[in-house]
């Protein structure tokens, strides 16, 4: 496992999604030593699970490839995956971080050849596809995963499958005796970039996500559109029926005191983008977007106008009251179009919940003293010392705003370690 060499001039970046990667790379490319700690077995975070970006409809993996290449090439950057920061003590310029390393059961010998995966039989829900498909008990999380190393699922470690994986590896890369361990190292400044998670749609009871197969979330829909995803890029329901008549329910969890107080900012644009997926997939597609306000902020406005102009897309200003299903399992959205008061009961093939962004770290779970607001996002505050939020840990942000914010966070951290350097010089 990667050795962490660090000093008080080192910048610790917590979280290896787009924000954490950006902050880490910008600092490292300015000559600073950076340790990047990521909980997943690979970098890229949620962005690696997106098929396209709005508004350009380009591919997130394109930017990810560049960023991963930057990461591979940069000697200033140490990446630690499957690791979580459990404690940060000290003050700006002199922190000590405690990091818990979960066993990957695969060491750096791994060449990514895939022999272990072929040998193993057990299958589990694939997290990368939000459980919509299965993966082996020994697996490469996704085809662009960096580090390009396999992972052994802890659930097969004590089993025959675990032994098969070990036996299959010609390079002695499978190490079933690996244990969880803890490391401590110093850092001068900390960038907190733990990002977001999709709000648990099952909690939005009126929409029946936990009851109806054909009510899914926007992050699941995103995987569905991806040719690498669980349906090979086909917009289809679990029962195989083509989903041509798709409803998007905005603010599924956002702007709602029952769920998330805040507006998650991205969901309007995400649904407009996903509307393109449907319209591109089927000539006779029909899309309905139920919304309270369409928030296509500033430069994204024309993207909204383009979708609005499509003949087969309907916008309904209404928070859907509830979803029921008919006997064929078709979801029916019920509610009132508030523009002029029209009651509706619309049957769709598929309902996509535009679920919002929830901070990944729960309010009480920060391993460091930090000022948060009621939504659980980190507020910039002098009391945070040398800890700086980057990206969606600070607010519900889209990718470009997250990158922008993370770039600034890198400078904030550099200011601290430069002060340390000047003091030590």
């Amino acid at each position, binding site marked *: 496992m990667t050795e962490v060499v660090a000093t008080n001039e080192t910048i610790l970046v917590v979280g290896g999604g787009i924000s954490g990667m950006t902050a880490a790379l910008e600092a490292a490319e300015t000559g600073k030593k950076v340790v990047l700690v990521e909980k997943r077995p690979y970098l890229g975070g949620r962005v690696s699970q997106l098929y396209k970006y709005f508004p350009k409809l380009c591919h997130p993996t394109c930017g990810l490839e560049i960023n991963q290449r930057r990461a591979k090439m940069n000697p200033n950057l140490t990446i630690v995956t499957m690791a979580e920061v459990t404690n940060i003590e000290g003050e700006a310029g002199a922190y000590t971080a405690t990091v818990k390393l979960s066993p990957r059961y695969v060491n750096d010998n791994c060449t990514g050849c895939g022999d272990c995966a072929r040998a193993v039989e057990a299958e589990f829900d694939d997290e990368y596809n939000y459980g919509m498909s299965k993966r082996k008990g020994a697996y490469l999380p996704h085809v662009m995963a960096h580090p390009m190393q396999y992972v052994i699922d802890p659930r097969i470690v004590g089993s025959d499958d675990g032994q098969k994986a070990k036996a299959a590896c010609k390079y002695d890369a499978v190490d079933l005796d690996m244990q969880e361990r803890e490391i401590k190292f110093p850092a001068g400044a900390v960038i907190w970039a733990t990002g977001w998670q999709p709000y648990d749609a099952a909690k939005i009871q009126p929409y029946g996500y936990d009851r109806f197969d054909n009510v899914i979330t926007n992050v699941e829909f995103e995987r569905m559109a991806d040719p690498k995803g669980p349906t090979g890029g086909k917009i289809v329901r679990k029962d195989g029926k083509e989903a041509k008549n798709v409803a998007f329910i905005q603010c599924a969890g956002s*702007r709602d005191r*029952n769920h998330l107080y805040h507006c998650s900012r991205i969901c309007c644009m995400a649904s407009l983008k996903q509307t393109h997926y449907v319209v591109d997939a089927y000539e006779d597609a029909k899309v309905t977007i139920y919304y309270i306000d369409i928030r296509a902020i500033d430069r994204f406005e024309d993207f909204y106008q383009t979708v609005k102009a499509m003949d087969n897309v309907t916008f309904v200003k209404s928070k859907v009251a509830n979803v029921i299903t008919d006997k064929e399992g078709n979801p029916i959205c019920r509610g*009132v179009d*508030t523009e002029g008061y029209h*009651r509706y009961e619309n049957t769709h093939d598929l309902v996509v919940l535009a679920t919002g962004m929830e901070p990944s770290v729960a309010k009480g779970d920060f391993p460091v003293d930090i000022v948060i607001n009621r939504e659980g996002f980190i507020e910039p505050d002098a009391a945070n010392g040398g800890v700086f939020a980057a990206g969606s840990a600070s607010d519900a942000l889209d990718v470009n705003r997250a990158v922008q914010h993370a770039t600034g966070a890198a400078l904030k951290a550099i200011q601290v370690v430069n002060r340390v350097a000047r003091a030590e010089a």
Partner: protein
Amino acid sequence: MSDMNKAMVEKYRNSFLSEVEANVEEGEWVKMCMQCGVCAGSCPLGDAWEHTPQKIFMMIRAGKRDEVLASDSMWMCTSCYNCIVRCPRELPITHIMHGLAHYAKRLGIVPQGQPTAKFAQLFWDNLIKKGRVNELKLGLSLYFMNGFGEGIKTSLKMKDIGLGMVKTKRMNPMEMLGGHAVKDLSGFQKVIKKAQELEEARLAKHGA
């Protein structure tokens, strides 16, 4: 127009929203509505509403005082609380509807013959009399609330139901003669009277 109604019109000339805020139960929540319409869609009796709650809130802000207060709509509330639990802004919509209804009643501008308005008044009168509701009297007074002829018709229509209830001892014709009551009836009535006075005084202060 009742005197009180006139006074209120005068006082809140420009802002019906302020009037509602000051005089209607939970009226201070009306301003917080963001017009999502989830209440409208969630109402089990939705079809029966000329104006949905969300629309009523918009009408209040738009100063449509008479249209709101004289509306039949809030009397359609079944107190099912669907709207309350789904409202993303936590507006106590059920209570606001009750509050608007009550306020309209106070001002004397309830639509003629609104059955729920009558029933709700009867219910109140009934419970105040003895401290407990006398279902039989309530039922009968209800049947006759639209006049004797209508009452007979309704009674006949409801006859079978009444019979079923009597047979299962879930209705007691003897209740007509007296029925259940709280023992400290005078104490009970004093409490309610005092509460009414306090509320009147509070509103009068606002209304002054």
